[in-house]
């Protein structure tokens, strides 16, 4: 297709490479950014999985020394930190990035360079937080104070190594990227929908992206402040969590969980959105109770800010506070439960097709419900005091995050793979992988319920045989082996499929939403023409009009004018540069406490690069290319 560079007005020329390494470094295309998120996140997922594998090896039998206690602390801290911040959130971000503009009929997000910056912040932050491994797993340089870094274990007095510093600075770097993508998605959704697509005609995945983004922009400031306070304590001898000077360690918990609770909804709402897209397609029925689903999503988002202290029932906040948070927590189960009934009703009387994606979606409903039930049990403050800090909580976490988020993500991979890569993953291998993953996951995680109620505490590197925990720990580790086989099958499927030619049809599943109206893989400009939307699930009703309906009522395209060149946003080096600056600053700050001579120069260099990044961004001019689209849609 014909392209022509737009004359740039700025100080620096904008890069224009379309292929090769630099085309990826300078891309601002939401689809490429989504794919980069997905691949990077999958690799980190494997890293987090390896950390879990080592944990389960260590706990397979009582009294083992596969890893020592110090290394074990690093393993469970990094397993959780990696899975939450470097795997699940970015995997969900991959979908949100790739799909959002396609689902609303837009050509890209509102701020393409900012979108790229979010990815580079993630990559550099993820590398930063893992740097400590090269200094030795048990050295204290790897974060080892738990993924929620409770004060004052994280003080210099009790954790003199670099671990908590890597953790604090790393999460700050990661947080900025996530925060700005929140702004990006909200503006995109509010401002860039195709003509006729009112908010209540958007795909439900777009709604979950919107509510998730709102949660991000209002919860991340809380953890940013908590981390800055900890950073100041550790680097500049401030007293925010210094008990000797009169500080409160519980204050850290309040700030952290003010973020932490909305965070878990950030981890699950997009996953619920994915499931809500897959189920209707493979039931050949619209999502049951769309309006109620939208309302429930918004309600979960809002209530998510009212429950944070249910993570602190055993801290001693008193009966009044405990009761209030028990009640709010129980309330939040209501909209969640409503969703489960809506999903079941979507399938009821539908023509259910059990593709791999559908199997994962149904697996999600089952396993997330189990996770939700254990969660509801935690909501009662008295029961919570028995369950907290035991494997019963670990069971809950893994049922909602693997049985929930990961299942949805895997389903989403199978469902949208053709749109992303132009090929269909093998259904045979897919189904095999599903059963291995499903059986493996339940085998490893269900015993955690028993172990928890039998009193096995979290975060301990070994146990004695006299406790009676031997059998279920062994079963759990066997489950991990089965799960690993499932993950390897997925990787094998991916590799084999990428060898095949990219000839998947535009609409392999008889889909309902706009991404299926364009070729597979999606062309760089998304839509040759922006459609005019008349209904929810417009594409479905255009293909299968109801009685008295005309296809053109659902979906229509304006007359193709002679001048139909499309302006694509300009590529840029600045997003990567602007992410690099703070990373170097972080390395500088890391070594300030120990007074290393390069610390201050590194910090100053980081600040200078950041300023250069800002100025380059502001003054590089519009750039971009004009493209003539292929014939057809």
């Amino acid at each position, binding site marked *: 297709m014909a392209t022509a560079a737009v004359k740039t007005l700025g100080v620096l020329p904008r890069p224009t490479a379309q292929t090769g390494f630099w085309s990826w470094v300078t891309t601002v295309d939401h689809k490429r950014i989504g794919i980069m998120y997905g691949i990077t996140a999958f690799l980190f997922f494997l890293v987090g999985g390896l950390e879990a594998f080592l944990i389960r090896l260590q706990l397979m039998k009582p009294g083992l020394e596969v890893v020592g206690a110090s290394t074990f602390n690093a393993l469970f801290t990094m397993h959780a930190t990696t899975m939450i911040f470097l795997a699940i959130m970015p995997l969900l971000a991959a979908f949100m990035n790739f799909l959002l503009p396609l689902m609303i009929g837009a050509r890209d997000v*509102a*701020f393409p360079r900012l979108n790229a910056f979010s990815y580079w912040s993630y990559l550099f932050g993820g590398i930063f937080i893992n740097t400590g491994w090269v200094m030795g797993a048990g050295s204290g340089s790897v974060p080892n104070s738990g993924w929620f870094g409770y004060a004052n274990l994280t003080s210099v007095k009790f954790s003199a190594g670099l671990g908590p510093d890597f953790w604090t600075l790393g999460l700050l770097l990661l947080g900025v990227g996530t*925060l700005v993508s*929140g*702004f*990006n998605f*909200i*503006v995109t959704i*509010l*401002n*860039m*929908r195709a003509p006729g697509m009112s908010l209540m005609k958007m795909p439900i995945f777009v709604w979950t992206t919107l509510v998730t983004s709102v949660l991000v*922009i*209002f919860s*991340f*400031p*809380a953890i*940013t*402040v*908590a981390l*800055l*306070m900890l950073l*100041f304590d550790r680097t*500049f*001898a*401030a*007293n*925010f969590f210094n008990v000797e*000077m*009169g*500080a*409160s360690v519980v*204050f850290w918990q309040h*700030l952290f969980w*003010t973020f932490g609770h909305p965070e878990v909804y950030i981890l699950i709402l997009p996953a619920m959105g994915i499931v809500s897209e897959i189920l209707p397609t493979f039931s050949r029925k619209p999502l049951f109770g769309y309006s109620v689903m939208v309302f429930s999503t918004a309600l979960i988002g809002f209530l998510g800010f009212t429950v944070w202290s249910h993570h602190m029932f055993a801290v001693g906040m008193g009966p009044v506070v405990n009761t209030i948070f028990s009640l709010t927590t129980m309330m939040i189960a209501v909209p969640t439960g409503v969703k489960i009934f809506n999903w079941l009703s979507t399938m009821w009387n539908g023509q259910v097709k059990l593709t791999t994606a559908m199997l994962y979606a149904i697996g999600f409903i089952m396993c997330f419900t189990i996770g939700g039930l254990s969660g509801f049990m935690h909501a009662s403050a008295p029961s919570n005091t028995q369950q907290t800090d035991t494997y019963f909580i670990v069971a809950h976490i893994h049922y909602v995050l693997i049985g929930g988020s990961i299942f949805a993500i895997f389903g989403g991979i199978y469902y949208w793979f053709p749109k992303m890569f132009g090929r269909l993953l093998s259904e045979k291998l897919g189904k095999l992988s599903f059963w291995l993953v499903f059986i493996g996951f339940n085998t490893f995680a269900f015993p955690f319920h028993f172990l928890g109620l039998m009193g096995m505490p979290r975060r301990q590197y070994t146990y004695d045989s006299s406790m009676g925990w031997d059998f279920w720990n062994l079963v759990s580790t066997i489950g991990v082996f089965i799960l690993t086989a499932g993950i390897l099958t997925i990787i094998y499927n991916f590799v084999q499929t990428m060898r095949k030619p990219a000839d998947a049809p535009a609409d392999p599943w008889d889909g309902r939403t706009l991404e299926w109206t364009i070729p597979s893989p999606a062309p760089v400009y998304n839509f040759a023409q922006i459609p005019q939307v008349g209904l929810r699930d417009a594409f479905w009703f255009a293909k299968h009009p109801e009685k008295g309906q005309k296809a053109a009522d659902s979906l229509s395209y304006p007359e193709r004018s002679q001048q139909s060149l499309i302006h694509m946003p300009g590529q840029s080096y600045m997003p990567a540069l602007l992410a690099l600056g703070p990373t170097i600053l972080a390395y500088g700050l890391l070594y300030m406490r120990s007074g290393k001579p390069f610390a201050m120069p590194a910090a100053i260099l980081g600040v200078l690069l950041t*300023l250069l990044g800002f*100025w380059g961004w*502001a*003054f590089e001019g*519009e750039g971009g290319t004009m493209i003539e689209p292929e014939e057809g849609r």
Partner: protein
Amino acid sequence: MAHGHDPHAQVTNTGIDNRKLGFWLFLSSESVFFACLIVGYLVYHGSNSGGPTPRDLFNIPLTTISTFVLLMSSLAMVLGVNSAQRGENRKGMLWTAITAAMGLVFLGFQVYEFSHFAHEGLTLSSSLFGTTFYVLTGFHGAHVAVGVIWLLSLLFYGRKGGLGADKADDVEVAGLYWHFVDIVWIVLFTVIYLVEFVS
């Protein structure tokens, strides 16, 4: 009367420019950021570890002057936005420069105050009051400093043709940031300084 019309303005569902919408979301988020820092100050208020207390150190007349300067800088800023939107390119530059200068004056007062307090024995480590005071007002000051750099960058941007209608949207966004930083100080002046002297 003519308003700044950006030739690259997009057609949006809400009718609001993407950058403006995005920036208000950012300001909303920053409100929560400052609230958490303010809460840190409030929960630890009263813990002085035998060192200087707020009443010992605060100079209300002086701080009132710096508050007044920052407030008037907001006036200068909005006059700058107004001029830019009306196509008064040179006035746009002038008011932006005045705003930046007033911002620097405010920062000067902050630097004086910090060094004076430190001289009196209040440091980041000396007590919870020291920690929370310096971090809260320090982050505000850092925001002002970023704002000054932003305004100076705007002056560079307008160095050839001034800041007129074609750049009015950029001046407006900078203005929103500046006013927000002023609003935060309005809250801080009361919550940190004035409440100390209520009897």
